[in-house]
Protein backbone atom coordinates (compact mmCIF):
# COMPACT_ATOMS: atom_id res chain seq x y z
CA UNK A 1 0.00 0.00 0.00
CA UNK A 2 2.79 2.37 0.97
CA UNK A 3 4.52 1.59 -2.27
CA UNK A 4 1.48 2.68 -4.25
CA UNK A 5 1.31 5.96 -2.37
CA UNK A 6 4.96 6.70 -2.85
CA UNK A 7 4.80 5.96 -6.55
CA UNK A 8 1.74 8.23 -6.86
CA UNK A 9 3.67 10.88 -4.98
CA UNK A 10 6.54 10.36 -7.34
CA UNK A 11 4.38 10.88 -10.41
CA UNK A 12 2.74 13.96 -8.96
CA UNK A 13 6.10 15.59 -8.41
CA UNK A 14 6.13 16.18 -12.17
CA UNK A 15 4.33 19.40 -13.14
CA UNK A 16 2.85 17.90 -16.34
CA UNK A 17 1.14 15.18 -14.32
CA UNK A 18 -0.32 17.81 -11.99
CA UNK A 19 -1.48 19.88 -14.97
CA UNK A 20 -3.18 16.90 -16.56
CA UNK A 21 -4.82 16.04 -13.25
CA UNK A 22 -6.20 19.55 -12.69
CA UNK A 23 -7.44 19.92 -16.27
CA UNK A 24 -9.15 16.53 -16.30
CA UNK A 25 -10.86 17.08 -12.95
CA UNK A 26 -12.13 20.51 -14.00
CA UNK A 27 -13.38 19.30 -17.35
CA UNK A 28 -15.07 16.30 -15.74
CA UNK A 29 -16.84 18.55 -13.26
CA UNK A 30 -18.11 21.02 -15.86
CA UNK A 31 -19.16 18.48 -18.44
CA UNK A 32 -21.02 16.38 -15.89
CA UNK A 33 -23.00 19.42 -14.71
CA UNK A 34 -23.96 20.41 -18.23
CA UNK A 35 -24.39 16.74 -19.10
CA UNK A 36 -27.53 16.36 -17.00
CA UNK A 37 -29.48 18.83 -19.06
CA UNK A 38 -27.84 17.79 -22.34
CA UNK A 39 -28.82 14.16 -21.78
CA UNK A 40 -32.35 15.17 -20.82
CA UNK A 41 -32.60 17.35 -23.91
CA UNK A 42 -31.54 14.37 -26.04
CA UNK A 43 -28.28 16.03 -27.01
CA UNK A 44 -25.88 13.40 -25.67
CA UNK A 45 -23.89 13.29 -28.86
CA UNK A 46 -23.20 16.98 -29.06
CA UNK A 47 -19.49 16.44 -28.34
CA UNK A 48 -19.15 13.88 -31.09
CA UNK A 49 -21.04 16.01 -33.58
CA UNK A 50 -18.99 19.08 -32.82
CA UNK A 51 -15.70 17.27 -33.35
CA UNK A 52 -16.82 16.46 -36.87
CA UNK A 53 -17.73 20.09 -37.39
CA UNK A 54 -14.28 21.04 -36.15
CA UNK A 55 -12.80 18.61 -38.69
CA UNK A 56 -14.76 20.22 -41.52
CA UNK A 57 -13.66 23.66 -40.39
CA UNK A 58 -10.07 22.47 -40.18
CA UNK A 59 -10.21 21.23 -43.76
CA UNK A 60 -11.52 24.61 -44.86
CA UNK A 61 -8.79 26.48 -43.05
CA UNK A 62 -6.15 24.14 -44.47
CA UNK A 63 -7.46 24.76 -47.98
CA UNK A 64 -7.49 28.49 -47.30
CA UNK A 65 -3.85 28.10 -46.41
CA UNK A 66 -4.10 29.26 -42.84
CA UNK A 67 -1.32 28.07 -40.59
CA UNK A 68 -3.30 28.58 -37.40
CA UNK A 69 -6.64 26.84 -38.00
CA UNK A 70 -8.12 27.91 -34.66
CA UNK A 71 -9.21 31.25 -36.16
CA UNK A 72 -11.77 29.38 -38.24
CA UNK A 73 -12.29 26.21 -36.22
CA UNK A 74 -13.24 27.81 -32.92
CA UNK A 75 -15.90 30.26 -34.14
CA UNK A 76 -17.43 27.73 -36.55
CA UNK A 77 -17.68 25.11 -33.83
CA UNK A 78 -19.12 27.51 -31.28
CA UNK A 79 -21.69 28.76 -33.78
CA UNK A 80 -22.78 25.24 -34.71
CA UNK A 81 -23.00 24.35 -31.03
CA UNK A 82 -25.24 27.32 -30.39
CA UNK A 83 -27.41 26.44 -33.39
CA UNK A 84 -27.71 22.83 -32.26
CA UNK A 85 -28.45 23.66 -28.64
CA UNK A 86 -30.96 26.35 -29.44
CA UNK A 87 -33.20 23.98 -31.32
CA UNK A 88 -35.67 23.56 -28.50
CA UNK A 89 -38.66 21.31 -28.15
CA UNK A 90 -40.63 23.11 -30.79
CA UNK A 91 -38.55 22.49 -33.86
CA UNK A 92 -39.50 20.02 -36.54
CA UNK A 93 -36.09 18.30 -36.47
CA UNK A 94 -35.25 16.84 -33.09
CA UNK A 95 -31.91 17.33 -31.35
CA UNK A 96 -30.41 13.93 -32.14
CA UNK A 97 -31.34 14.14 -35.80
CA UNK A 98 -29.99 17.65 -36.24
CA UNK A 99 -26.70 16.70 -34.59
CA UNK A 100 -26.37 13.73 -36.90
CA UNK A 101 -27.21 15.92 -39.89
CA UNK A 102 -24.69 18.63 -39.11
CA UNK A 103 -21.88 16.25 -38.18
CA UNK A 104 -22.31 14.10 -41.27
CA UNK A 105 -22.42 17.13 -43.56
CA UNK A 106 -19.33 18.58 -41.93
CA UNK A 107 -17.47 15.27 -42.33
CA UNK A 108 -18.49 15.07 -45.97
CA UNK A 109 -17.46 18.65 -46.67
CA UNK A 110 -14.10 18.12 -45.03
CA UNK A 111 -13.50 14.90 -46.94
CA UNK A 112 -14.46 16.44 -50.29
CA UNK A 113 -12.14 19.38 -49.69
CA UNK A 114 -9.32 17.03 -48.73
CA UNK A 115 -9.77 15.19 -52.02
CA UNK A 116 -9.98 18.28 -54.19
CA UNK A 117 -6.92 19.84 -52.59
CA UNK A 118 -4.89 16.79 -51.64
CA UNK A 119 -1.67 18.60 -50.98
CA UNK A 120 -3.19 21.12 -48.62
CA UNK A 121 -1.86 19.74 -45.37
CA UNK A 122 -1.54 16.88 -43.01
CA UNK A 123 -5.24 16.67 -42.27
CA UNK A 124 -5.44 13.10 -41.06
CA UNK A 125 -3.32 14.06 -38.07
CA UNK A 126 -5.78 16.83 -37.37
CA UNK A 127 -8.69 14.39 -37.58
CA UNK A 128 -7.09 12.23 -34.94
CA UNK A 129 -6.46 15.37 -33.00
CA UNK A 130 -10.11 16.29 -32.92
CA UNK A 131 -11.06 12.82 -31.75
CA UNK A 132 -8.36 12.21 -29.16
CA UNK A 133 -7.29 15.74 -28.30
CA UNK A 134 -4.83 17.65 -30.42
CA UNK A 135 -2.36 18.07 -27.63
CA UNK A 136 -1.60 14.91 -25.74
CA UNK A 137 -2.96 15.16 -22.24
CA UNK A 138 0.52 14.78 -20.75
CA UNK A 139 2.03 17.64 -22.75
CA UNK A 140 -0.24 20.37 -21.38
CA UNK A 141 1.39 23.70 -20.65
CA UNK A 142 0.71 25.97 -17.73
CA UNK A 143 -1.24 28.30 -20.03
CA UNK A 144 -3.59 25.42 -20.91
CA UNK A 145 -4.28 24.93 -17.22
CA UNK A 146 -5.10 28.61 -16.76
CA UNK A 147 -7.36 28.61 -19.79
CA UNK A 148 -9.16 25.58 -18.46
CA UNK A 149 -9.46 27.09 -14.99
CA UNK A 150 -11.02 30.28 -16.32
CA UNK A 151 -13.46 28.35 -18.54
CA UNK A 152 -14.45 26.17 -15.62
CA UNK A 153 -15.06 29.13 -13.35
CA UNK A 154 -17.30 30.69 -16.00
CA UNK A 155 -19.22 27.45 -16.52
CA UNK A 156 -19.59 26.82 -12.79
CA UNK A 157 -20.82 30.31 -11.96
CA UNK A 158 -23.27 30.35 -14.88
CA UNK A 159 -24.53 26.94 -13.85
CA UNK A 160 -25.02 27.88 -10.21
CA UNK A 161 -26.57 31.28 -10.92
CA UNK A 162 -28.97 29.89 -13.51
CA UNK A 163 -29.55 26.51 -11.90
CA UNK A 164 -33.27 27.07 -11.22
CA UNK A 165 -33.86 28.48 -14.67
CA UNK A 166 -31.99 25.62 -16.30
CA UNK A 167 -34.23 23.18 -14.44
CA UNK A 168 -37.41 24.93 -15.48
CA UNK A 169 -36.41 25.32 -19.12
CA UNK A 170 -35.23 21.74 -19.40
CA UNK A 171 -38.36 20.39 -17.72
CA UNK A 172 -40.98 22.40 -19.58
CA UNK A 173 -39.80 25.12 -21.90
CA UNK A 174 -43.30 26.17 -22.97
CA UNK A 175 -44.42 26.79 -19.42
CA UNK A 176 -41.38 28.94 -18.67
CA UNK A 177 -41.93 30.95 -21.80
CA UNK A 178 -45.66 31.30 -21.18
CA UNK A 179 -45.18 32.66 -17.69
CA UNK A 180 -42.78 35.33 -18.86
CA UNK A 181 -39.38 33.72 -18.21
CA UNK A 182 -37.05 34.84 -20.98
CA UNK A 183 -36.24 31.29 -22.01
CA UNK A 184 -34.60 32.24 -25.31
CA UNK A 185 -31.99 34.33 -23.52
CA UNK A 186 -31.28 31.59 -20.99
CA UNK A 187 -31.12 28.95 -23.71
CA UNK A 188 -28.58 31.05 -25.55
CA UNK A 189 -26.45 31.53 -22.43
CA UNK A 190 -26.48 27.80 -21.71
CA UNK A 191 -25.70 27.03 -25.34
CA UNK A 192 -22.74 29.39 -25.46
CA UNK A 193 -21.32 28.08 -22.20
CA UNK A 194 -21.74 24.47 -23.30
CA UNK A 195 -20.17 25.25 -26.64
CA UNK A 196 -17.18 26.89 -24.99
CA UNK A 197 -16.48 24.04 -22.62
CA UNK A 198 -16.93 21.40 -25.31
CA UNK A 199 -14.67 23.20 -27.75
CA UNK A 200 -11.99 23.83 -25.13
CA UNK A 201 -12.14 20.30 -23.82
CA UNK A 202 -12.14 18.86 -27.32
CA UNK A 203 -8.80 20.50 -27.96
CA UNK A 204 -7.34 19.38 -24.65
CA UNK A 205 -8.69 15.88 -24.08
CA UNK A 206 -10.50 14.99 -27.30
CA UNK A 207 -14.14 14.53 -28.21
CA UNK A 208 -14.38 10.84 -27.35
CA UNK A 209 -13.63 11.55 -23.72
CA UNK A 210 -15.91 14.58 -23.72
CA UNK A 211 -18.85 12.54 -24.97
CA UNK A 212 -18.24 9.99 -22.25
CA UNK A 213 -17.91 12.65 -19.58
CA UNK A 214 -21.19 14.24 -20.66
CA UNK A 215 -23.20 11.03 -20.92
CA UNK A 216 -22.02 8.62 -18.23
CA UNK A 217 -22.20 10.54 -14.92
CA UNK A 218 -25.70 11.85 -15.69
CA UNK A 219 -26.97 8.41 -16.71
CA UNK A 220 -25.45 6.73 -13.64
CA UNK A 221 -26.94 9.32 -11.30
CA UNK A 222 -30.35 8.99 -12.96
CA UNK A 223 -30.36 5.26 -12.21
CA UNK A 224 -30.62 5.93 -8.49
CA UNK A 225 -31.65 9.49 -7.76
CA UNK A 226 -35.08 10.90 -8.43
CA UNK A 227 -34.81 14.67 -8.11
CA UNK A 228 -33.00 17.10 -10.35
CA UNK A 229 -30.85 18.45 -7.56
CA UNK A 230 -29.68 15.08 -6.30
CA UNK A 231 -28.99 13.89 -9.84
CA UNK A 232 -26.92 16.99 -10.55
CA UNK A 233 -24.88 16.74 -7.36
CA UNK A 234 -24.42 13.00 -7.71
CA UNK A 235 -23.26 13.19 -11.30
CA UNK A 236 -20.72 15.88 -10.43
CA UNK A 237 -19.34 13.69 -7.64
CA UNK A 238 -19.29 10.57 -9.82
CA UNK A 239 -17.55 12.41 -12.60
CA UNK A 240 -14.81 13.87 -10.41
CA UNK A 241 -14.23 10.61 -8.55
CA UNK A 242 -14.08 8.58 -11.78
CA UNK A 243 -11.69 11.04 -13.37
CA UNK A 244 -9.46 10.94 -10.28
CA UNK A 245 -9.38 7.14 -10.06
CA UNK A 246 -8.97 6.88 -13.81
CA UNK A 247 -5.88 9.07 -13.79
CA UNK A 248 -4.30 7.27 -10.85
CA UNK A 249 -4.96 3.84 -12.34
CA UNK A 250 -3.53 4.95 -15.66
CA UNK A 251 -0.40 6.22 -13.93
CA UNK A 252 0.09 3.03 -11.93
CA UNK A 253 -0.58 0.59 -14.74
CA UNK A 254 0.48 2.88 -17.60
CA UNK A 255 -2.84 2.54 -19.43
CA UNK A 256 -4.10 5.34 -21.70
CA UNK A 257 -5.60 8.11 -19.55
CA UNK A 258 -8.76 8.96 -21.52
CA UNK A 259 -9.75 5.35 -22.07
CA UNK A 260 -9.20 4.50 -18.41
CA UNK A 261 -11.44 7.36 -17.30
CA UNK A 262 -14.14 6.17 -19.70
CA UNK A 263 -13.76 2.63 -18.38
CA UNK A 264 -14.10 3.72 -14.76
CA UNK A 265 -17.24 5.70 -15.71
CA UNK A 266 -18.63 2.60 -17.37
CA UNK A 267 -17.93 0.45 -14.32
CA UNK A 268 -19.65 3.04 -12.12
CA UNK A 269 -22.64 2.98 -14.43
CA UNK A 270 -22.86 -0.81 -14.16
CA UNK A 271 -22.64 -0.64 -10.36
CA UNK A 272 -25.36 2.02 -10.17
CA UNK A 273 -27.58 0.04 -12.54
CA UNK A 274 -27.08 -3.02 -10.36
CA UNK A 275 -28.04 -1.08 -7.23
CA UNK A 276 -31.11 0.35 -8.93
CA UNK A 277 -32.31 -3.09 -10.07
CA UNK A 278 -31.76 -4.52 -6.61
CA UNK A 279 -33.56 -1.71 -4.78
CA UNK A 280 -36.53 -1.57 -7.15
CA UNK A 281 -37.47 -5.15 -6.36
Amino acid at each position, binding site marked *: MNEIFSSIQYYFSYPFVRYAFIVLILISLCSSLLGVSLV*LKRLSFIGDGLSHVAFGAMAISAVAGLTNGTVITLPVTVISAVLLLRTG*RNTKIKGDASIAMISVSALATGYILMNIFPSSSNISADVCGSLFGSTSILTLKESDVWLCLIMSLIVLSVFILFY*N*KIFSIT*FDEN*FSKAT*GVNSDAYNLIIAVVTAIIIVTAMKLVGSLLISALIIFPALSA*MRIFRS*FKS*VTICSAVISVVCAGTGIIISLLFSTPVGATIVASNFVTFMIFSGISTLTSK
Partner: protein
Amino acid sequence: MKEQIICRNAALGYEDGIVTENLNFTVNSGDYLCILGENGSGKSTLIKALLGLKPQVSGEIKFCGDFSSKDIGYLPQQTPVQRDFPASVREIVLSGCLSRMGLRPFYKSAEKKLASDTMKQLGIENLADRCYRDLSGGQQQRVLLARALCAAEKMLLLDEPVTGLDPHAQNELYELVSKLNRNGISIIMVSHDISSALKYASHILHISKKQLFFGTKLDYIKSSTGMKFLESEVASDE
Protein backbone atom coordinates in the same frame (compact mmCIF):
# COMPACT_ATOMS: atom_id res chain seq x y z
CA MET B 1 -63.59 45.96 -13.66
CA LYS B 2 -60.33 46.45 -15.50
CA GLU B 3 -59.56 45.17 -18.96
CA GLN B 4 -56.72 42.66 -19.01
CA ILE B 5 -56.76 41.08 -22.45
CA ILE B 6 -58.41 42.40 -25.61
CA CYS B 7 -58.57 40.23 -28.69
CA ARG B 8 -59.56 42.03 -31.90
CA ASN B 9 -60.29 40.24 -35.14
CA ALA B 10 -57.55 37.70 -34.48
CA ALA B 11 -56.95 34.76 -36.82
CA LEU B 12 -54.95 31.78 -35.60
CA GLY B 13 -53.30 29.02 -37.53
CA TYR B 14 -50.22 27.02 -38.43
CA GLU B 15 -48.07 26.88 -41.54
CA ASP B 16 -50.67 24.75 -43.27
CA GLY B 17 -53.56 27.16 -42.84
CA ILE B 18 -55.92 29.11 -40.64
CA VAL B 19 -57.52 27.16 -37.80
CA THR B 20 -59.93 29.76 -36.51
CA GLU B 21 -60.62 33.43 -37.24
CA ASN B 22 -62.73 36.49 -36.43
CA LEU B 23 -62.00 36.20 -32.72
CA ASN B 24 -63.26 39.21 -30.79
CA PHE B 25 -63.46 39.21 -27.03
CA THR B 26 -62.31 40.97 -23.90
CA VAL B 27 -61.22 39.55 -20.57
CA ASN B 28 -61.70 41.81 -17.55
CA SER B 29 -60.13 41.27 -14.19
CA GLY B 30 -62.23 38.89 -12.15
CA ASP B 31 -63.82 37.24 -15.18
CA TYR B 32 -64.26 33.48 -15.45
CA LEU B 33 -64.18 32.76 -19.17
CA CYS B 34 -64.97 29.31 -20.44
CA ILE B 35 -63.88 28.38 -23.96
CA LEU B 36 -66.08 25.79 -25.66
CA GLY B 37 -65.77 24.08 -29.02
CA GLU B 38 -65.40 20.65 -30.53
CA ASN B 39 -62.10 18.76 -30.93
CA GLY B 40 -59.75 20.52 -33.29
CA SER B 41 -61.66 23.79 -33.25
CA GLY B 42 -58.58 25.67 -32.09
CA LYS B 43 -59.07 26.05 -28.33
CA SER B 44 -55.55 25.01 -27.39
CA THR B 45 -54.23 27.11 -30.24
CA LEU B 46 -56.06 30.10 -28.81
CA ILE B 47 -54.58 29.46 -25.37
CA LYS B 48 -51.11 29.29 -26.90
CA ALA B 49 -51.75 32.55 -28.72
CA LEU B 50 -52.85 34.24 -25.49
CA LEU B 51 -49.63 33.05 -23.89
CA GLY B 52 -47.52 34.32 -26.77
CA LEU B 53 -46.28 30.83 -27.62
CA LYS B 54 -47.91 30.86 -31.05
CA PRO B 55 -48.36 34.37 -32.50
CA GLN B 56 -51.65 35.15 -34.25
CA VAL B 57 -51.69 35.17 -38.05
CA SER B 58 -53.50 38.49 -38.19
CA GLY B 59 -55.48 40.78 -35.92
CA GLU B 60 -54.48 41.80 -32.45
CA ILE B 61 -54.17 40.28 -29.00
CA LYS B 62 -53.41 43.03 -26.52
CA PHE B 63 -52.42 42.96 -22.85
CA CYS B 64 -53.80 46.08 -21.16
CA GLY B 65 -52.14 48.41 -18.70
CA ASP B 66 -49.66 46.78 -16.38
CA PHE B 67 -50.94 43.27 -17.12
CA SER B 68 -48.20 41.09 -18.59
CA SER B 69 -47.34 37.47 -19.21
CA LYS B 70 -45.57 37.41 -15.83
CA ASP B 71 -49.00 37.55 -14.14
CA ILE B 72 -50.30 34.41 -15.85
CA GLY B 73 -50.27 30.85 -14.61
CA TYR B 74 -50.73 28.13 -17.21
CA LEU B 75 -51.83 24.52 -17.09
CA PRO B 76 -51.15 22.85 -20.45
CA GLN B 77 -53.47 20.24 -21.95
CA GLN B 78 -50.60 17.81 -22.29
CA THR B 79 -47.09 18.17 -20.95
CA PRO B 80 -44.58 16.34 -23.08
CA VAL B 81 -42.38 15.48 -20.11
CA GLN B 82 -39.90 12.77 -20.86
CA ARG B 83 -40.43 9.49 -19.15
CA ASP B 84 -37.04 9.46 -17.46
CA PHE B 85 -36.89 13.06 -16.26
CA PRO B 86 -35.72 13.16 -12.65
CA ALA B 87 -37.68 15.88 -10.87
CA SER B 88 -39.31 15.94 -7.46
CA VAL B 89 -42.79 17.40 -6.99
CA ARG B 90 -41.38 20.18 -4.84
CA GLU B 91 -38.89 21.22 -7.51
CA ILE B 92 -41.63 21.39 -10.13
CA VAL B 93 -44.05 23.39 -7.99
CA LEU B 94 -41.27 25.79 -6.98
CA SER B 95 -40.37 26.36 -10.62
CA GLY B 96 -43.73 28.12 -10.96
CA CYS B 97 -42.31 30.96 -8.86
CA LEU B 98 -39.52 31.62 -11.36
CA SER B 99 -41.42 34.22 -13.35
CA ARG B 100 -41.65 36.55 -10.38
CA MET B 101 -37.93 36.30 -9.60
CA GLY B 102 -36.51 38.22 -12.54
CA LEU B 103 -32.74 37.84 -12.51
CA ARG B 104 -32.51 36.77 -8.88
CA PRO B 105 -30.91 33.31 -8.96
CA PHE B 106 -32.30 31.61 -5.86
CA TYR B 107 -35.69 31.18 -4.20
CA LYS B 108 -36.51 33.20 -1.10
CA SER B 109 -38.23 31.64 1.87
CA ALA B 110 -41.45 33.45 0.88
CA GLU B 111 -41.46 31.52 -2.40
CA LYS B 112 -40.74 28.22 -0.67
CA LYS B 113 -43.64 28.92 1.66
CA LEU B 114 -45.93 29.78 -1.24
CA ALA B 115 -45.00 26.48 -2.88
CA SER B 116 -45.66 24.41 0.22
CA ASP B 117 -48.90 26.28 0.96
CA THR B 118 -50.07 25.63 -2.58
CA MET B 119 -49.20 21.95 -2.28
CA LYS B 120 -51.18 21.78 0.96
CA GLN B 121 -54.12 23.53 -0.69
CA LEU B 122 -54.17 20.90 -3.44
CA GLY B 123 -53.60 18.01 -1.07
CA ILE B 124 -50.27 16.94 -2.52
CA GLU B 125 -47.97 17.93 0.34
CA ASN B 126 -47.39 14.25 1.13
CA LEU B 127 -46.06 13.80 -2.42
CA ALA B 128 -43.57 16.68 -2.17
CA ASP B 129 -40.46 14.52 -2.28
CA ARG B 130 -41.78 11.93 -4.71
CA CYS B 131 -40.52 11.78 -8.26
CA TYR B 132 -42.94 13.32 -10.77
CA ARG B 133 -42.70 10.47 -13.25
CA ASP B 134 -43.79 7.92 -10.65
CA LEU B 135 -47.13 9.65 -9.98
CA SER B 136 -50.54 8.77 -11.41
CA GLY B 137 -52.00 10.94 -14.16
CA GLY B 138 -54.36 12.71 -11.78
CA GLN B 139 -51.62 13.40 -9.27
CA GLN B 140 -49.40 14.78 -12.02
CA GLN B 141 -52.22 17.08 -13.09
CA ARG B 142 -52.46 18.47 -9.56
CA VAL B 143 -48.72 19.04 -9.41
CA LEU B 144 -48.88 21.05 -12.62
CA LEU B 145 -51.88 22.96 -11.30
CA ALA B 146 -49.92 23.79 -8.15
CA ARG B 147 -47.09 25.05 -10.34
CA ALA B 148 -49.54 27.19 -12.33
CA LEU B 149 -50.96 28.60 -9.09
CA CYS B 150 -47.48 29.59 -7.95
CA ALA B 151 -47.00 31.50 -11.19
CA ALA B 152 -50.41 33.17 -11.30
CA GLU B 153 -50.83 36.52 -9.69
CA LYS B 154 -53.69 37.82 -11.79
CA MET B 155 -54.80 35.17 -14.25
CA LEU B 156 -54.92 31.39 -14.69
CA LEU B 157 -55.15 29.70 -18.10
CA LEU B 158 -56.34 26.12 -17.83
CA ASP B 159 -56.54 23.84 -20.86
CA GLU B 160 -58.93 21.01 -20.00
CA PRO B 161 -57.72 20.77 -16.41
CA VAL B 162 -60.04 17.99 -15.27
CA THR B 163 -59.00 15.42 -17.88
CA GLY B 164 -57.98 12.26 -16.09
CA LEU B 165 -59.30 13.23 -12.68
CA ASP B 166 -61.94 11.16 -10.91
CA PRO B 167 -65.38 12.83 -10.47
CA HIS B 168 -64.67 13.74 -6.87
CA ALA B 169 -61.33 15.34 -7.74
CA GLN B 170 -63.00 17.08 -10.68
CA ASN B 171 -65.50 18.75 -8.40
CA GLU B 172 -62.80 19.68 -5.94
CA LEU B 173 -60.81 21.27 -8.72
CA TYR B 174 -63.77 23.24 -10.02
CA GLU B 175 -64.53 24.47 -6.51
CA LEU B 176 -60.90 25.40 -5.97
CA VAL B 177 -60.70 27.32 -9.23
CA SER B 178 -63.95 29.08 -8.44
CA LYS B 179 -62.64 30.04 -5.00
CA LEU B 180 -59.51 31.49 -6.60
CA ASN B 181 -61.75 33.38 -8.97
CA ARG B 182 -63.77 34.84 -6.08
CA ASN B 183 -60.44 35.97 -4.56
CA GLY B 184 -59.89 38.06 -7.67
CA ILE B 185 -57.89 35.88 -10.08
CA SER B 186 -59.28 35.85 -13.60
CA ILE B 187 -59.80 32.41 -15.09
CA ILE B 188 -59.71 31.27 -18.70
CA MET B 189 -60.60 27.61 -18.95
CA VAL B 190 -61.00 25.29 -21.90
CA SER B 191 -63.61 22.70 -21.13
CA HIS B 192 -65.80 20.03 -22.69
CA ASP B 193 -67.87 19.81 -19.54
CA ILE B 194 -70.77 22.08 -20.48
CA SER B 195 -72.72 21.71 -17.24
CA SER B 196 -69.89 22.84 -14.99
CA ALA B 197 -68.97 25.52 -17.49
CA LEU B 198 -72.46 26.92 -17.09
CA LYS B 199 -72.33 26.48 -13.35
CA TYR B 200 -69.09 28.32 -12.67
CA ALA B 201 -68.23 30.59 -15.61
CA SER B 202 -69.21 34.21 -15.98
CA HIS B 203 -68.52 34.39 -19.72
CA ILE B 204 -68.54 31.89 -22.57
CA LEU B 205 -66.50 31.90 -25.76
CA HIS B 206 -67.66 29.32 -28.27
CA ILE B 207 -65.36 28.79 -31.26
CA SER B 208 -65.25 26.67 -34.35
CA LYS B 209 -63.81 27.65 -37.74
CA LYS B 210 -64.71 31.12 -36.54
CA GLN B 211 -66.08 32.64 -33.37
CA LEU B 212 -69.65 31.46 -32.82
CA PHE B 213 -70.42 33.26 -29.59
CA PHE B 214 -68.90 35.53 -27.01
CA GLY B 215 -70.83 37.00 -24.10
CA THR B 216 -72.09 36.35 -20.63
CA LYS B 217 -73.33 32.95 -19.59
CA LEU B 218 -76.98 34.07 -19.47
CA ASP B 219 -76.86 35.45 -23.00
CA TYR B 220 -75.26 32.21 -24.15
CA ILE B 221 -78.09 30.06 -22.86
CA LYS B 222 -80.55 32.24 -24.76
CA SER B 223 -78.49 32.46 -27.98
CA SER B 224 -79.10 30.17 -30.94
CA THR B 225 -75.56 28.73 -30.75
CA GLY B 226 -76.00 28.01 -27.07
CA MET B 227 -79.40 26.39 -27.47
CA LYS B 228 -78.22 24.21 -30.34
CA PHE B 229 -75.11 23.12 -28.43
CA LEU B 230 -77.01 22.48 -25.20
CA GLU B 231 -79.63 20.41 -27.02
CA SER B 232 -77.00 18.23 -28.67
CA GLU B 233 -75.21 17.78 -25.33
CA VAL B 234 -78.41 16.78 -23.56
CA ALA B 235 -79.26 14.42 -26.41
CA SER B 236 -75.87 12.74 -26.22
CA ASP B 237 -76.11 12.46 -22.43
CA GLU B 238 -79.27 10.41 -22.65
